[in-house]
């Protein structure tokens, strides 16, 4: 292997090097265009769902019975040329059912789509991120333990087989049965359900991460720097945290990307089956699910939530790419 001394060599020591590790990571991250756009989009969405409801103060649960099934305002463009302008200025008289009161339209019982999207975003993002975090935590933990400690490898991998084989639905039903009451009384009905759902999704989706991480750890364990760490008497806990974990970040990052998408979609399937949030609680998955039957008449009801889910997943994917590069000192250094 070539020793690349020339480029790496440090004749003039740049002041930048003294800024510390995180500044470096950020500097590298900034050079990844996809990651930059991705995080911009992601932060915008987060900010919108966090603060949007304070600006667009319509209650997402409020049903405006007089204006059910209102189209989104852009539906004006479906009109003949001459009527488009007047449709925007005075929507009440237009040939399509639009109004500025509900710029993105309403659903079949008159709830404001914009408000529901904003509010639903909070839940979906929270569920997606938390469930992903739980799955990652579990997966990484089990993967590392079974890769690192040979003795528990077999049992842990069989446990993984077991979880892969468990049918999700009965498992969730059992969880709801066992814990809903207790959690509801401790955290309120919504908080309780949130914890249940997030744990349910997390508990049933850690297995791929565990397998991938284990594979990497098995290889990593044989690397010489691990032996070197052993030669100075490093304890297993610190060994894992310092030497193993940082070096398996990249597959974990990929799992994170896919995990968010899976969690958001699983949540929608759960509410669809009645295991999810209370019915008047919008989430993107549920909006998409509810909207499917209206797809032909009111395509916006699926387009908005569908696009938002995809955009979140895409942006997380690009952020993950950028972060992976940025966290790798080798790439960062160049």
């Amino acid at each position, binding site marked *: 292997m070539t020793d690349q001394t020339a480029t790496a060599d440090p004749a003039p020591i740049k002041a930048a090097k003294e800024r510390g590790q995180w500044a470096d990571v950020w500097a590298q991250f900034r050079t990844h265009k996809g990651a930059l756009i991705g995080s911009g989009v992601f932060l915008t969405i987060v900010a919108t769902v966090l603060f949007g409801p304070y600006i667009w103060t319509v209650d997402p649960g409020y049903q405006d019975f007089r204006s059910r099934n209102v189209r989104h305002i852009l539906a004006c463009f479906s009109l003949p040329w001459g009527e488009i302008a007047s449709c925007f200025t005075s929507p009440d008289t237009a040939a399509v059912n639009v109004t500025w009161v509900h710029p993105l339209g309403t659903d079949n019982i008159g709830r404001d789509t914009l408000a529901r999207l904003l509010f639903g975003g909070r839940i979906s993002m929270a569920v997606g991120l938390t469930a992903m975090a739980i799955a990652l935590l579990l997966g990484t933990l089990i993967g590392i333990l079974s890769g690192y400690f040979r003795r528990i490898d*077999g049992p842990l991998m*069989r446990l993984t*087989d*077991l979880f*892969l*084989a*468990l*049918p999700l*639905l*009965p*498992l969730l*039903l*059992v969880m709801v*049965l*066992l814990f809903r009451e207790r959690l509801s009384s401790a955290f309120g009905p919504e908080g309780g359900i949130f914890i249940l759902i997030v744990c349910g999704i997390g508990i049933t989706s850690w297995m791929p991460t565990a397998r991938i991480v284990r594979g990497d750890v098995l290889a990593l364990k044989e690397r010489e720097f691990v032996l070197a760490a052993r030669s100075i008497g490093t304890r297993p806990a610190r060994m894992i945290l310092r030497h193993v974990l940082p070096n398996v970040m990249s597959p974990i990052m*990929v799992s994170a990307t*896919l995990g968010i*998408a899976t969690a*958001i*979609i699983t949540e*929608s*399937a759960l509410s*669809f089956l009645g295991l999810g949030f209370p019915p008047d609680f919008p989430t993107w*998955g549920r909006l*998409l*699910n509810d909207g*499917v039957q209206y*797809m*032909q008449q009111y395509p916006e009801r*699926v387009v908005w939530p*569908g696009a938002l*889910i*995809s955009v*979140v*997943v*895409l942006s997380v*994917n690009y952020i993950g790419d950028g972060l992976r590069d940025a966290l790798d000192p080798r790439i960062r250094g160049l």
Partner: protein
Amino acid sequence: MLTFTIRRLLTAVPTLLFISLVIFLLLELAPGDPMAQVPLTVPPEVKQRMREALGLGEPVPVRFYKWLVQMFWVEPKVFIDWMTRDSWLLGWLPDTALYGGEQRVISWQTRSPVMDIIVQRLPQTLWVVGMAYVIGVLIALPIGIISAYRQYSVFDQVGTFVSMIGFSIPPFFSGVVVIVIFSVQLGWFPSIYDTTHRVVDWETFKVQISQMVMPVMVLALQTTAQISRFMRASMLDNLGQDYVRTARAKGMRERTVVLIHVLRNSMIPVVTVIALGVPSIFGGAIITEQIFKVNGIGQLFITALQANDLPMVLTVAFIFAFLIVLFNLIADVLYGVLDPRIRYD
């Protein structure tokens, strides 16, 4: 490797027994009642009698034991009988007639042997879900290879974009979209899958293809998205390796270099992923089957779950667990076949 395989197979037996026990207890613990779908007009005492007729009155260990006996003793006998009687493979052997009319695993919903129904569902599951998987893999591999070979090209960027979208759109949405477009608007394909359709000649084959196109498309999108990502990452890892340069220095064509030298090395993780996806073919695709009315094993499983048909759910889940354990093993073995460096110890 053989000893490794045998050892793994031996440990698989207790694993599977344990898994089936856990699934059984889980289903036992889950709320729900096989009588839930019986109309409310049927009086409760009648429902109670119906439950007893299903054997629900017996204690839990007895029921698990009975299931074990039926599953591992009675059903194999039926299977062997069938093999020696009707199958083309061993049909020439004398009929073994092992099965003496013992109780088989009986579905609560249909009151018929669970295995018969599963066997009945297999063809369409394999045709649609299996085909989708095969096609998904076949598309994913070249996409992954090209995007890695031309990293950051337009092709690669578009590939990333499409596969991430494909991954984030649930089939309950994409399925309806293709139905609306191709069945309703264009009228090209039927929206409902005919499971009784038999392929006997070219015409019926065309019909079969046309009814498979949409479900296969929707399912393949997901497979493609996932596997092409893995393929790309793995190819990228290998394209920079020194042996690639060696192959070029030997004067090999680019095609040989990429498709023989790099591909075989890159296949190792991809094959694992592919092999681990195979059990899900047999498990069916719950939502997609539902949307296209394919009524394969996925639909069987979900209807059984909804009807709390415990023997059916348990058996399907067990078969699924069996396949997972089996294909995990196959993946490990394949790993060794592909990469001679891998040792089993």
